[in-house]
């Protein structure tokens, strides 16, 4: 699993977007698709938060919140969920709401997924407690993690 470069330029494309410089954020809506290095993220709405002095050059993007049918694709990993938070500083993607991760033929489902972009390690757990950003709370699912692994046949 190659290490994802979070400092690569990020390309957004959407139907609409609004840059609110005073609030240091940009809101994109209308089948947003984000491309950074070799990772793509598609969602209905994305909010980009950036911090730091924007004056002396490019800003420090700190966080991307995606919601509404998020689909993340990486070279050999694809993940699907309702919400996703991509924290560029800690280089972790957290996904919530009936997550389905497929990696090399195996699919795993669960409540919450945490992908560490440096090591490519994906941790799935069942608890999807906690209210989501857009206000309505996610119900606590039965907390199970399901998975289907394809076993390579060993020949004889």
């Amino acid at each position, binding site marked *: 699993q190659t290490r994802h470069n*979070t*400092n690569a*330029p*990020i*390309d*957004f*494309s*959407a*139907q*609409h*977007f*609004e*840059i*609110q*410089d*005073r609030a240091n954020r*940009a809101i*994109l809506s209308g089948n947003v698709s984000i491309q950074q290095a070799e990772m793509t993220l598609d969602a209905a709405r994305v909010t*980009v938060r*950036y911090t*730091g002095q*924007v*004056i002396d*050059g*490019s*800003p*420090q*993007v700190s966080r991307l919140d995606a919601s509404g049918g998020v689909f993340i694709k990486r070279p050999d990993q694809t993940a699907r969920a309702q919400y996703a938070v991509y924290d*560029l*500083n800690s280089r972790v993607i957290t996904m919530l709401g009936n997550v389905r991760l497929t990696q090399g033929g195996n699919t795993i489902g669960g409540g919450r997924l945490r992908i560490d972009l440096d090591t490519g390690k994906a941790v799935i757990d069942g608890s999807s407690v906690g209210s989501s950003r857009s206000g309505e709370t996610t119900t606590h699912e039965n907390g199970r993690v399901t998975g289907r692994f394809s076993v390579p046949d060993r020949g004889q």
Partner: protein
Amino acid sequence: MSEIAKQMRSRRQRWAEPGSGHDRIVAIMQAGLPMAIGVLAAFLVMAPLFKGGDVSFLLAKDKVDVAKERLKIQSATYRGEDDKGRAFTLVAGQAVQKSSAEPVVRMKDLAAQIQLSDGPARLVAQQGRYDMDSQKVKIEGPIKFRAADGYQLDTRDATVDLRTRTMKSDSPVSGRTPLGTFSGDELSADLEKRIIRIDGNAHLRIVPKQANRR
């Protein structure tokens, strides 16, 4: 004395006798010359009054070089007030107003100075048409917006409303802000609140600053 000398002397004596030709000439001159002086003086005094006829010339209306536009100003300054009553000035290298009927002034290399809540801001463009009634500048070509604290917005072909300090463009537009470069079909920006809204296949490209960790 010789014969000739005698004839010479007698001719000169005849010339000098009273009533000779010479005397007649002198008598005529004595009366003629003063009269000639008088006539000349009268002529000189009266001449400009009568002779005015041939000095004037006919101004042919169609052969004169007529200026096309009604008003051409070299370095023009237009002042106005935005809706909060703060003054703005619009300086143009050259401003041409086609006719007094339409209040639109075509301007070259114009600069607008507007007041925002956090200080003055400047907007520079190469070409634009300023509508004096609606106080809107329809700009063709690149636009550079610089705010007091260094905030920048570069875009092109937009209409700037100096009264409400907003910028709108309905043709495809591209530009750059500190956050990144954007492009899209329609732009509407509020320069005061610094909100840039792009509609219609909007693209945004952010190059995050190199993380200062590690």
